[in-house]
């Protein structure tokens, strides 16, 4: 589904990613862990198409297309979804209205018919039930005045509604209490599907107790320095990121 090869990305003259390679197949859950400043969020933003990220080398293929050649809205329609680390407030714009505009924009771009308000509302109710969310969320403006936890839950709600093929969760666990964390994990687990892949970017192992990944990668200094199964996350938890650096040094020597 997704193949990143030797990706080099520069932001404002500074090299952030330096030769990152990653392959994600449909149905898989990949966790990306790593210390602060390793380039984890950059990876998410580059995949979603944020401006200001200069790709100086490497390629990203998504379902056989050159992902970097697509506009952010084209990527969304093609099934790429980024759950933001810091979800953005859009004052005055009703959450339901926003989601319907988004879903129908994607459907139009894919040549599918738009959902009318009844069909859309039905879908909304289904997803709310799965995520144990309150209706009240729908009537408020997009993220306006939401608590940190509400914003993150709203991201997961959007993901559930938009049904992407490739979902990237950028530190969705940060700032969540344990109940909210479980809720987010339940939402993700409910969406696990042989046709859908997840990239879960996280700083802590805690989330991975609830969303059990197929692969864990350690991102440091702009590339993936270690990959393994879920046990890698536990080792990291135990030894800290410095352990990776030491192992690398030992390997080099």
């Amino acid at each position, binding site marked *: 589904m997704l193949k990143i090869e030797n990706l080099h990305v520069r932001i404002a003259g500074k090299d952030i990613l330096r030769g990152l390679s990653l392959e994600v197949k449909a149905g898989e859950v990949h966790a990306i862990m790593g210390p602060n400043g390793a380039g984890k969020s950059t990876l998410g933003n580059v995949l*979603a*198409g*944020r*401006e*200001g990220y200069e790709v100086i080398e490497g390629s990203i293929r998504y379902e056989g297309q050159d992902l970097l050649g697509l*506009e*952010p*809205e084209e*990527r*969304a*329609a093609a099934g790429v*979804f*980024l759950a*933001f680390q810091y*979800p*953005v*407030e*859009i*004052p*005055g*714009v009703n959450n339901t209205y*926003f*989601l319907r*505009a*988004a*879903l129908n*924009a*994607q459907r139009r*771009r894919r040549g599918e018919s738009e959902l009318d308000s009844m069909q859309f509302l039905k879908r909304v109710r289904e997803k709310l039930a799965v995520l144990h969310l309150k209706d009240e969320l729908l009537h408020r*403006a*997009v993220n306006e005045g939401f608590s940190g936890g509400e914003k993150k839950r709203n991201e997961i709600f*959007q993901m559930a509604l*938009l049904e992407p093929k490739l979902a990237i969760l950028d530190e969705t666990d940060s700032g969540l209490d344990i109940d909210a964390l479980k809720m987010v994990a339940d939402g993700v687990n409910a969406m696990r599907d042989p046709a859908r892949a997840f990239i879960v970017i996280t700083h802590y192992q805690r989330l991975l107790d609830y969303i059990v990944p197929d692969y864990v990668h350690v991102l440091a200094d702009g590339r993936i320095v270690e990959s393994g199964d879920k046990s890698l996350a536990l080792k990291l938890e135990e030894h800290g990121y410095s352990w990776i650096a030491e192992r690398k040094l030992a390997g080099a020597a």
Partner: protein
Amino acid sequence: MATNMTRESEPLVLRDRESVSSEGNEHIVEAINRRYGAGFVTDIETDTLPPGLNEDVVRWISARKGEPGWMTEWRLQAYRHWLTMIPPEWAKLRIAPIDFQAISYFAAPKEGPKSLAEVDPKLLETYEKLGVPLHERARLAGVAVDAVFDSVSVGTTFRKELAEAGVIFCSMSEAVKEHPDLVRAYLGSVVPTSDNYFAALNSAVFSDGSFVFIPKGVRCPMELSTYFRINAINTGQFERTLIVAEEGASVSYLEGCTAPMRDENQLHAAVVELVALDDADIKYSTVQNWYPGDENGLGGIYNFVTKRGDCRGVRSKISWTQVETGSAITWKYPSCVLRGDESVGEFHSVALTHHHQQADTGTKMIHIGRNTKSKIIAKGISAGRGQNSYRGLVKVEKGASGARNYTQCDSLLIGKKCGAHTFPYIEVKNPSAIVEHEATTSKISDDQLFYCRSRGIAEEDAVSLIVDGFCRQVFRELPMEFAVEAKKLLEVSLEGAVG
């Protein structure tokens, strides 16, 4: 031009002579006849005064409209006062000096294009985007549509229903003739002829406008709109509107200027007066989209308008809602004088400036009565090189104990070359008053745009969405169809604002 005088205008000149002779200025009448009688009063299609302004012109307009002597006199007084005034310079506007002698003060129904085929395609495209119905498009474009679209029957139906309710809704010209006592009692009672430079000018030369009278205890059975008044088509540049709601009466009035006028650098100086007696309620909504000039700031309407409501009675309420997207320059402060105890004034505004447009707009809330309340919600949007200023006065007079005001003033910037400015003036002379003012300035951030786009919404749609959200508080004050229109208007006006 033909040289024969129309049948209509002849008796008018006679009447004019009467009023003039009361002043002993016989020679002026001769002058009028000499200068205008032969050459310019032709037929209604092409009847236009040559540029220039003097007492003769004022008299000619009054005569042309068949006004009684007192009305001519009223105009002349306004004109004489105007001569002593200077244009206001306190607004944050760059206005090239206006040569008032270069303007023609009477251009009755202009001969427009004969069919839609003759209309500028760009204009038609705009109408299409706005979703204006086809017959309406023709009318807005100034095509002579009476033959195409028979709106007369529509108008007649409305008139009948209104007449049954006792509501008077007609052109100001008709009102002067048919309801002179009402007009005399209220005209100029809210905006005196000497009020300000442009109001004085309007008083002297106003061409037409609307007159609405809602008698005691009547709730107007429908929303009144200039759309439905046939003789409002091509109303001149100096409209005069007067709305009176008697005790316990209520009315909602819609003023749609959704047609971009193609005339360039035209001066538009209107005056609107509202009078609300005890327990009366007037809601006045405007969607203004006069021609804003081109992308380089060439042409466009100068929209210098005085709008004021007088909450004369106890518990009366006047509410202004405006969506201003057009005009090269807007100078406009719809205000409320809260004279009656417990009266309420409201102002909801969205003003958008794009390209080289300038707007200096806001409101005045004058609290005179006790326990009076006012609310101001002003939203300014600037894009391109647009300059947008909010200017508002909240004044609480000595006797206005228990007065309350809440002001919220938000600015949204799109791009880096535009400007937003806020000039709130607060004068409080009563210690029991509570006055609140909140102001914010925000930009459509890259984060917001990326967030929308990452969900599948294209950039231009994302801008519309964000702007629409910003204006929500004001849009919900508008009647449904107007709200839809206003939203579309913003979309059209902001095309190309990002990117």
